């Protein structure tokens, strides 16, 4: 049933966001002060053009299919950039480079299986849920030449993913609770 699929999907999205938070904290532990000043603003994220709710009232008014469509659109928008993060992590000038590399790998795997799960779900929730907004990543195939640029661009991309994974997690948890009317104890 859809409720179980949504419950499992929101557990995975929870893990996805938690991973991105751990990665952000690892990166922040060794980040040049100048980086905070010159790092691009969140509004520059490649997914920022997607209109999403910005508070609870707006979010609770969005239909189930639109919430799922938003989650899938965001997730699919990260397929290429996560690959870029994964290849860039191997040469990241950071003392925690191998830990970061492993976590990025797990991030890709979790993201892939969450995407597969949401594809199945959307098949059960009607055509609107299958609609996906295209959010192409146009940041190129590398994160810059010099060490500082690579670290800053890596951190920026990850900060964008962290925010989007929180959105995905929030949308799926709202969906999961709507589907859980038969099991109110969990919501």
């Amino acid at each position: 049933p859809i409720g179980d699929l949504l419950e499992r999907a929101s557990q995975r999205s929870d893990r996805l966001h938690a991973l991105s938070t751990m990665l952000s904290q690892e990166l922040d532990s060794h980040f040049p002060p100048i980086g905070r000043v010159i790092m691009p603003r969140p509004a520059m994220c490649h997914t920022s053009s997607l209109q999403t709710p910005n508070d609870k009232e707006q979010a609770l008014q969005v239909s189930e299919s639109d919430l799922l469509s938003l989650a899938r659109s965001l997730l699919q928008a990260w397929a290429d950039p996560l690959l870029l993060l994964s290849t860039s992590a191997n040469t990241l000038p950071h003392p925690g480079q191998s830990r970061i590399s492993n976590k990025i790998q797990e991030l890709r795997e979790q993201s892939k299986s969450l995407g597969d799960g949401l594809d199945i779900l959307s098949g059960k929730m009607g055509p609107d849920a299958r609609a996906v907004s295209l959010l192409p990543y146009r940041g190129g195939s590398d994160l810059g030449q010099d060490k500082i640029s690579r670290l800053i661009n890596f951190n920026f991309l990850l900060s964008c993913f962290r925010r989007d994974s929180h959105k995905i997690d929030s949308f799926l948890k709202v969906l999961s609770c709507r589907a859980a009317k038969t099991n109110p104890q969990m919501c």
Partner: protein
Amino acid sequence: SLPGKPALTRCRSPEKETFTCWWEPGSDGGLPTTYALYYRKENSETVHECPDYRTAGKNSCFFNKNDTSIWVNYNITVVATNSLGSTFSDPVDVDVVYIVKPNPPEKVAVTVLEDKGWPFLRVSWEPPHKADTRSGWITLIYELRVKLEKEDEWEVHLAGQQKMFNIFSLRSGGTYLIQVRCKPDHGFWSEWSSTSYTEVPDYFQRERSV
């Protein structure tokens, strides 16, 4: 002299719908000094002043539901001003989704029940009333701790999303202290709830009399 540099010390949201920021004033330079908080949201160049300096008390700014957006960066600065001029705090970037710290759980109730002649404690609670867990907007996990009145060591139990927990292997005739706290899926632990006390009957006495 000019006022000392104030510092934004903390911002917290109890339920991902509103939030509050607090600041530490610097030295006042020996002159009457006023403080103001200004913020700019990431996709706007407009600078706004704090909407509410009162609700959350001294040296604070409260953002109600209408003033609060999530997944949006707030760039916040505090300004101290006296007759000689103004001093600005370092700006701080805040996204409400990363500053959630709920209030403690409420209506903590402890009941002594019996299972095959052995007593156990059933602890139940409610989420903090401000947190909307029903719609899934906020997902809380809970932790409780229990100890005997005369002892120092707490025994901690993770209850997950449940709002009820049973505690077995109790000390006959002991008085137990119980507290509960909660944490959003991505955020900070609340403070512990106020302490609930309960006394376990002296069941060994009854055993000997059988």
